[in-house]
């Protein structure tokens, strides 16, 4: 009995230490520029020498397209335009086939030079909400346009949950007959 509780204590301490060790690596909470909030590494790499000159001229390298196709990206998710952000970093744009919305260029891939390789990242969806939400919805409040527009389906579910709670209370607690008729 005592042995078990002692080992449990040690295990908890070990887990705590492990968590602190790992948490050292976690980027600051809510930092919009931290890599996990900004882009996902697709672990596609290209040789820098040839591709970089193409990218600087604004031409989409063949290698990039074929590698993305091999990864299973749809036709309208392949880059159509490249723009340089700064030295060694590029944005790639796609023109999605949005039938419900006018087709609009969208920032989708991010290419970064590290050493003699180019690594390809994909922008997180939140980047579009942050950078283009005001323009797309004409609502200045970021919380509202994400809650009610981009995540409208989710909010519909939340309202339904509240509605269900209300119906549950009505069914369980309502006692019409016992209501005092005093006035």
């Amino acid at each position: 009995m005592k042995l078990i509780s002692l080992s449990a204590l040690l295990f908890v301490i070990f887990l705590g230490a492990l968590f602190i060790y790992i948490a050292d690596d976690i980027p600051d909470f809510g930092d919009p520029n931290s890599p996990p909030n900004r882009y996902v590494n697709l672990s596609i790499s290209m040789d820098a020498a040839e591709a970089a000159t193409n990218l600087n001229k604004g031409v989409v390298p063949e290698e990039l397209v074929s590698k993305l196709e091999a990864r299973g990206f749809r036709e309208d998710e392949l880059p159509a335009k490249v723009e340089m952000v700064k030295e060694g970093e590029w944005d790639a744009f796609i023109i999605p086939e949005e039938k419900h919305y006018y087709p609009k260029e969208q920032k989708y891939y991010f290419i970064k030079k590290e050493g003699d390789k180019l690594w390809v990242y994909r922008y997180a969806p939140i980047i579009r909400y942050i950078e283009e939400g005001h323009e797309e919805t004409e609502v200045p409040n970021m919380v509202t346009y994400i809650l009610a527009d981009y995540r409208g389906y989710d909010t519909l579910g939340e309202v339904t949950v509240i509605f269900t709670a209300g119906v549950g209370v009505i069914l369980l607690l309502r006692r019409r007959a016992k209501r005092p008729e005093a006035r």
Partner: protein
Amino acid sequence: MNTEKSEAGEGKKRGGDVIVETVSRLMVPFIQLFALYVIIHGAGGPGGGFQGGVIFGASFVLLVIAFGIVKAGDRFPEGINTALTSLGVYIYAGVGLLCIILSLGVAQYLNYGFLSLPVHFEERRALGMDLVEIGIGITVMAVITSIFFNLVWKREPEGGGGEEE
């Protein structure tokens, strides 16, 4: 017997405190106005349907605390409350469905840009969001109120009517 007793003493026991009654009578309209402001203001600043709905519900809770459940219940009948509970969800889901119907099936569900309002695409999305927030506000208000009213009503006959104040 018990009910008769409480019937007789209801009016005096409940509406005893003049200060509480007067202050809450003055406060309630302003609380409700503020709630409507928070709901409508949701697009431009802090606020939204959930927050505004809770404030609106709080105004009815204040009514119950000040005037007792019977008087407050007469002001906001149960039947209407139950109807409002579902009306909000209907408004929300209906706006979503209207987008599909008005665009003849082109738009997605809840794509407010296709509501036929006399403004441009982006502005329509903003107005659609306002409509949806109103729906959320109605549901939250009605649910908060009905939860509170039902909790109070159940205890009333057994306890002989001696609660708050």
